[in-house]
């Protein structure tokens, strides 16, 4: 987008329309390995997985009585997912799901934070494939748990809830069926995706227009100094996106835990 805007005539055209919004998110193939085409986003996805593995490997390589500062930070993150998400939401059984929750949380955290990482500046999770796949695995897990723990009562009690007055059961059942089996995986994926897309768009627009205006100061004079304002706003959004990245990784993991819990303790 920035490249497209630079080629437009800033003096005569008031608004430089970028060619298409998708060029912020879709990248050409960089290299091909055995028929698999790698674009920038797939390279970044592998890099995110590599970063997560490296963090855990170097953080937990040596089990010391007094761990290093880095080790404490990694152990703190693991404790946060195990106790703050797994045990608090799922209950004593939550420890079993800690590996899944931790893998998901750390990958999403790194992937989201790529948005505000200098030189990368692209959240991999803003490509729908990644949130959709993660949400699909969560969907399969809580569906499997629901049917494994409750047999077909999981489906029957959802459609025909005993706790509701008879006259309203069909309505509540319909809403519950729709929300559990369809809306849950959909909103889980769309929430993360939309947050990251919105953040990336906003950052590119504000910082990009700031750069374009400031670069045009010799041509259009002091009017270009409005770029300072956009740039400052972009830097403020930068901080906000830092918070959003962490929060969205947390919320995705938290909702995964909540859905697992609702399948395990289905009775109430």
């Amino acid at each position, binding site marked *: 987008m920035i490249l497209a805007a630079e080629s437009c005539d800033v003096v005569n055209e008031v608004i430089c329309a970028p060619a298409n*919004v998708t060029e912020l998110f879709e990248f050409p193939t960089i290299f091909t390995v055995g028929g698999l085409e790698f674009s920038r986003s797939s390279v970044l996805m592998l890099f995110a997985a590599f970063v997560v593995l490296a963090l855990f490997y170097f953080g937990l390589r040596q089990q010391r009585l007094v761990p290093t500062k880095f080790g404490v930070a990694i152990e703190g993150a693991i404790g946060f997912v195990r106790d*703050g998400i797994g045990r*608090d939401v799922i209950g004593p059984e939550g420890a079993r799901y800690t590996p899944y929750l931790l893998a998901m949380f750390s990958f999403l955290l790194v992937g989201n934070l790529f948005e505000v990482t200098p030189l990368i500046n692209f959240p991999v999770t803003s490509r729908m494939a990644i949130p959709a796949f993660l949400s699909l695995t969560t969907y399969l897990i809580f569906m499997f748990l629901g049917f494994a723990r409750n047999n077909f009562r999981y489906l029957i009690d959802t459609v025909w809830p005993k706790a509701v007055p008879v006259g309203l059961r069909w309505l509540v059942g319909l809403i519950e069926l729709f929300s559990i089996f369809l809306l849950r995986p959909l909103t889980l994926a769309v929430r993360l995706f939309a947050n990251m897309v919105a953040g990336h768009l906003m950052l590119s627009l504000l910082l990009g227009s700031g750069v374009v205006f400031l670069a045009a100061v010799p041509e259009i004079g002091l009017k270009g100094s409005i770029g300072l304002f956009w740039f400052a706003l972009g830097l403020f959004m930068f901080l906000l996106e830092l918070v959003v990245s962490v929060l969205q990784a947390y919320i995705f993991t*938290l909702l995964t835990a909540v859905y697992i819990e609702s399948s395990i303790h289905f009775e109430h």
Partner: protein
Amino acid sequence: MEGNIEALTGALSLVGYGLGAIGPGIGVGIVAGNAITAMARQPEMQGTIRTTMFLGIALTEALALIGFVLFFIASAG
């Protein structure tokens, strides 16, 4: 521009997103406000309340975000 419906489609999806954001905006405000009230009354329950608040915000916010995505689908299509 007169009678040019094509030029309107992008603007219409923008208006649609704006309308779709009203409800979740009010909802998130209610959730966060009540969470603050609850935290002020029982500071020792802060951790649980914060978790529940994020959960409530995430569920309420979903509608606005679906509207945001539909805006792009409608603009691109």
